[in-house]
């Protein structure tokens, strides 16, 4: 049996046009709330279009009408069956004070794992440079780190102003953008079942451990902490948070012991990932400023004790923020 196409189109055309108009409005204004009556009518129109699609698929192979209905039903389906909340107005303060620290705490196991991998890297880098100082060019192939620590400290302390004087703002911008890119890559490598993220964290640890042992062996502990702590107290945790996000992504991809489809596992963590990305990006903007405007100044211009105290203060504040912020339940709104 073939459908009476003309009659069918004449009967249904107005309902489809109405559904199309409603969809246009809903898609243009995602915040719009429909009344119960409108919602019922919308659902009725969706069901009618679905039924029409089923009918035309069964009783006619007319492709244009079928394609039109498929698109219409697909759009309506997305509006009706979407169970994730509609996006609400973004409130930066709420996000920063509650959502970010809560997300961090919810996934703290991934953070500890990220820290552990970095620490293993540190241990490896430290041991390697301690046992074989000639491995320096392999472990940390960066011009600034190749110099003898004692010579570098003497040079830096002799200078009245840092080498980047006059270029602090572009340097800060370079640091921020570069570190954010590296952090995003660390996260994105979670898609390699976490292997890439682990390598990135381990390698960061190796460099950190190697630099630390190199300066400690040269008796430059004060310089090392004074140089690294002001920005490192924020920068290193940021990279660890990026690693946390990468491991979270890898965990969802692997889905250990979970009988949930991959798409659902990934859907569950998408908001968590976005929050962590926002978190480490924000921290890295701050770290970029500090590294450019503070870390490059050394004694006698800026006493190491002040720099170390500043770094420890930042670290304490960050720890407190991540551990405690947003942990109090939000008081219920008073009745109107």
């Amino acid at each position, binding site marked *: 049996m073939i459908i009476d196409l003309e009659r069918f189109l004449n009967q249904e055309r107005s309902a489809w046009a109405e559904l199309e108009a409603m969809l246009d409005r809903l898609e243009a204004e995602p915040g719009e709330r429909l009344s119960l009556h409108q919602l019922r009518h919308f659902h009725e129109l969706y069901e009618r279009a679905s039924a029409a699609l089923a009918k035309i698929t069964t009783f006619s192979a007319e492709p*244009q009408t079928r394609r039109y209905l498929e698109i219409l039903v697909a759009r309506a389906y*997305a509006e009706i069956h979407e169970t994730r909340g509609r996006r609400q107005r973004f409130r930066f303060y709420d996000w920063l004070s509650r959502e970010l620290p809560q997300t961090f705490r919810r996934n703290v196991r991934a953070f500890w794992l990220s820290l552990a991998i970095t620490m293993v890297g540190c241990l490896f880098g430290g041991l390697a440079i301690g046992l074989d100082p000639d491995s320096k060019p392999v472990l940390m192939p960066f011009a600034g780190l190749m110099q003898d620590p004692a010579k570098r400290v003497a040079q830096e302390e002799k200078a009245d102003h840092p080498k980047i004087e006059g270029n602090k703002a572009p340097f800060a911008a370079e640091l921020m953008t570069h570190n954010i890119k590296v952090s995003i890559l660390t996260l994105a490598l979670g898609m390699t079942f976490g292997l890439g993220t682990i390598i990135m964290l381990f390698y960061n640890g190796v460099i950190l451990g190697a630099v630390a042992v190199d300066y400690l062996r040269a008796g430059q502990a004060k310089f090392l902490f004074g140089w690294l702590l002001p920005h490192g107290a924020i920068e290193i945790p940021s990279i660890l948070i990026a690693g946390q996000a990468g491991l979270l992504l890898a965990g969802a991809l692997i889905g250990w012991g979970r009988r949930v489809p991959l798409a659902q596992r990934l859907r569950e963590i998408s908001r968590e990932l976005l929050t962590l990305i926002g978190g480490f990006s924000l921290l890295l903007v701050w770290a970029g400023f500090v590294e450019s405007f503070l870390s490059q100044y050394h004694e006698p211009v800026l006493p190491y004790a002040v720099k170390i105290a500043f770094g420890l203060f930042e670290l304490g504040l960050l720890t407190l923020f991540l551990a405690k912020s947003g942990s109090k339940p939000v008081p219920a709104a008073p009745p109107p």
Partner: protein
Amino acid sequence: MSARQQLHIRTPEGIVFSQTLAGPVARAVAWIVDVLTIGAAISLLQTILMAFDALSPGIGLTLFVLAYFIVSLGYFIFLEWRLRGQTLGKRLLRLRVVDAEGMRLQFNQIVIRNLLRFVDDLPLLYFLGGLVCWFNGRSQRLGDIAANTVVIRLSQVGQPDLSQLLAGKFNSLRLYPHLAARLRQQVGPAEAAVALQAIMRRDEFNPVARVLLFGELARHFAAKVEFPADATEGQADEQYIRNVVDVVYRPRVETGTARANASMMS
């Protein structure tokens, strides 16, 4: 079209609808358009922002470094969000990013699929992403898998308008209602659709192909039900097929048309 190129979604109501997936080549072309657009925007910004160095040395460079980062990363996110899954390249190629389950595309998904370009881009020029996209059944790169999105081809389909085709013109086959009814019974949806498409797209064919196609279709339908000679005499194959389509898709004729047919009979 193979099943590989279609995304089929079954609704809880049991209705299946499909979307045509975009392949790696179309996506690559769209990406090239986007990269050229980003390049042009960055060049323009460089000219404008570096002029700020005249105010204070370093400020132009700082602004440029930040602008470069924001534009190169934010272009895809901003446009896909504002243009509901499209960038300029995707719009040009008529592609759109959609949720792989047919749900509404969320901002989280757009950010994740775009930030994961960092891994898709490895080692360079989207080699890894392209490879994954090529072998993935839904043509997804790694970013799409993580964000649970797919890129589909859009088809511009408005409400079907068959009024010109099925307008109440005189149809000699309707002079024999019992044969017309038999024809409706004999013709299946697929072959009816071929005839309908041939009529709808007749102006797209070259003249020789048009004559050959309608000749073949006319022989096919004539073999199903044989109408008396006076119903088909002097009729071009194309006119005969138009009449067949009219009978098959429009079983009930309006009163005016029926009257016209009846008067022709008398």
